[in-house]
């Protein structure tokens, strides 16, 4: 135990103080959020920044004031009468951003408005001008039919369904969208973490082997202690990284609302472009639900379990090879095992209580990802969680036992790449 602890400490300190670790730990959340949010942010910022001046050739002679009423801050509608000379030429010369032609038949529900511009205004612009014109025409035609104010209001009403979850305490705002998102994020995090930390373990073993430092190490410690010390040391590093990100994310949750709002196009919900954040979130039926502490506990437990299982196997692969190129082909079966649950993540998230989802989330090699996804999205029975975790732990112990035997022989084998038969022989020999 003492030796495992000494090696754990050494591995941990060596890695945590590396520039790589510090940079990734601090910058990864910024980068990820940046990549996710930046496009939306840019669209909103750039779109909001300029006002379009549009000259309107209004053959109906009634729609222009309505357009002006709907315009908001993004549009200035100018009557064609105020312009001297040819309208299209005025647009081409840059006097206006665009020309909107409203044919007279529009009032009778026929004809089509046309917008001319020298350059495309982009997707957001298209839907905005569409909505403004549609609303103006709709209101005008309702009025023409002498419909009462009551009916007009009915037409303008937007009904949205409020989604609620029944809980022990009554009802709570439904968080399906957010919970699914949380499930995906947690699942993918475990996936990436297992792959990255697992291959760090593998590379560490290969480095020990190629540098021959392992020769000295095994004259002082049992190979098993060396293996466990390394796996636990890198695992501890992973936990620190995870905790740091956790803190950063909690801090970031304060602005989570604005983040979510960036993903929502106001016109999808018939809201103005200047709709407030709260209105947007409400329209999309998004509330930021609190994440249950038990979910976080299970997430950390499954992250650790999955990491330990895969890392010990990656260590065995590292012990078997001496070249990084060989490591690629040897670790492929292992990498495939990590990828399989990712292939099932969507069906499992869609119906987290289906037989398929329950079954897959009990399989030890898949449970670290799929059980966490299920636990995030739905209420998983405790016995399922416990059974799944128990199976994972049993498999981990078995994997360590097999790995340690391959590792013991492998770390002292140099030269040619071993075959699968060799690995079996090493296992028996140890």
């Amino acid at each position: 135990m003492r030796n495992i602890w000494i090696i754990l400490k050494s591995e941990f300190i060596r890695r945590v103080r590396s520039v790589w670790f510090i940079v990734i730990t601090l910058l990864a959340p910024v980068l990820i959020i940046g990549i996710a949010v930046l496009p939306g942010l840019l669209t909103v910022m750039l779109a909001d920044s300029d006002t379009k001046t549009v000259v309107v050739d209004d053959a109906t002679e009634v729609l222009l004031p309505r357009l002006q009423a709907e315009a908001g801050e993004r549009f200035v509608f100018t009557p064609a009468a105020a312009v001297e000379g040819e309208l299209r030429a005025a647009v081409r010369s840059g006097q206006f951003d665009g020309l909107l032609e409203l044919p007279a038949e529009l009032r009778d529900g026929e004809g089509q408005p046309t917008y001319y511009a020298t350059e495309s205004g982009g997707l957001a612009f298209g839907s905005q001008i569409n909505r403004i014109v549609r609303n103006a025409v709709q209101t005008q035609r309702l009025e023409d039919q002498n419909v009462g104010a009551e009916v007009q209001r009915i037409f303008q009403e937007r009904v949205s369904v409020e989604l609620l979850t029944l809980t022990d305490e009554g009802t709570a705002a439904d968080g399906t969208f957010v919970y699914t998102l949380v499930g995906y994020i947690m699942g993918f995090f475990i996936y990436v973490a297992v792959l990255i930390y697992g291959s760090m373990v593998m590379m560490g073993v290969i480095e020990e082997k190629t540098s021959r430092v392992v020769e000295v190490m095994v004259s002082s410690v049992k190979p098993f202690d060396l293996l466990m010390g390394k796996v636990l040391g890198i695992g501890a590093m992973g936990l620190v990284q995870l905790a740091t990100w956790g803190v950063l994310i909690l801090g970031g949750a304060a602005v989570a609302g604005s983040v979510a709002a960036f993903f929502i196009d106001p016109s999808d919900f018939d809201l103005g472009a200047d709709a407030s954040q709260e209105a947007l979130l409400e329209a999309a039926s998004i509330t930021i639900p609190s994440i249950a502490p038990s979910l976080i506990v299970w997430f950390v437990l499954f992250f650790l379990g999955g990491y330990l299982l895969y890392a010990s196997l990656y260590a065995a692969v590292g012990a078997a090879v001496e070249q990084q190129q060989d490591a690629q082909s040897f670790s492929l079966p292992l990498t495939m095992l990590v990828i399989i649950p990712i292939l099932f993540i969507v069906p499992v998230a869609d119906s987290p209580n289906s037989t398929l989802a329950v079954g897959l989330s009990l399989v030890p090699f898949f449970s670290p990802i799929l059980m966490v996804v299920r636990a995030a999205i739905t209420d998983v029975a405790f016995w399922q969680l416990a059974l799944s975790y128990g199976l994972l732990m049993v498999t981990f112990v078995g994997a360590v036992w097999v790995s340690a035997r391959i590792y013991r022989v492998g770390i002292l084998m140099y030269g040619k790449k071993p075959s699968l038969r060799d690995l079996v022989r090493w296992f028996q020999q140890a």
Partner: protein
Amino acid sequence: MATLQVRDVVKRYRTVTAVDHVSFSAEAGRILGILGPNGAGKTSTIRMITYITTPDEGEVLFEGQPVGPWSQRRMGYLPEERGLYKKLKVGEQLLLLAELKGLARNDARARIRHWLDRFDAADWFDKKTEELSKGMQQKVQFIATILPEPDLIILDEPFSGLDPINAELLKDIILELKASGCTLLFASHRMEQVEQLCDDICLMAEGKVVVDGPLREVKQRFGKDTVLLEFAGSPAFLDPLVAAERVRIINKTQQRAEVRLLQGTPPRKVLEAALAGVEDVYRFEVMTPPLAEIFKSLVGKRPEEMARDEAPRPAEATA
């Protein structure tokens, strides 16, 4: 009682018997040289002594007890295949290895300072290992081996890669350790190095012990049948003697020749031939044959001829 006893030890790897009923012992205050070409089974034997592997048959006793994790702490092993953690500083590296041998951090730190000083490397403590040259790394590794003050020190080719000055320093320290009562094991395929240092030898070939015992005794068993000559002129005077199979040349240069006397040729025959054939003779000495020659007499081949083709890779050579 001998500190270390290797008793009838056998280690097999698949079809190859790497170590075949090997027995020898090593005593405190003496240096035992384990000699033999690559693939003779030296490293496989050492790995069983250091409890990295366990024998298929036989036993290894340290102070009368079978070796195990307990004995690992009291042994220092400098493997032939050397390496250090590149990303660790020299001080951390030494601390790690010392701690694994059971040393307390503070003790270890003081000793590290002492030995770095001794090796003229006091300012290396905070240097990253990857910044050191190969020779420097080797010194660090030697320090790591002796730092925990082990009772048994095993050095596998300790001089390879060292410049003459550092090799000399290393030799001094080895002799100091011997004087302090350590048991030293010194494995090498370079016989001439061993002759200068060892008290006892154990010659190995193809997994078996060919001969062992105190160096002097072993050499005396072979008698004084070797002649060393230093001269000015051409070594061609030896050619007729070689042609008549009266002598065999061990090595020869333009000024120096070492020959083995065959068929009871008296040493003076060589001297006479030399006096007749060269301008002058500076040195003439009748002596015991060098170890490599003894090896040849016993195994039938010189150690160099037996070395397997591949680079010295212990595991591969025995797997």
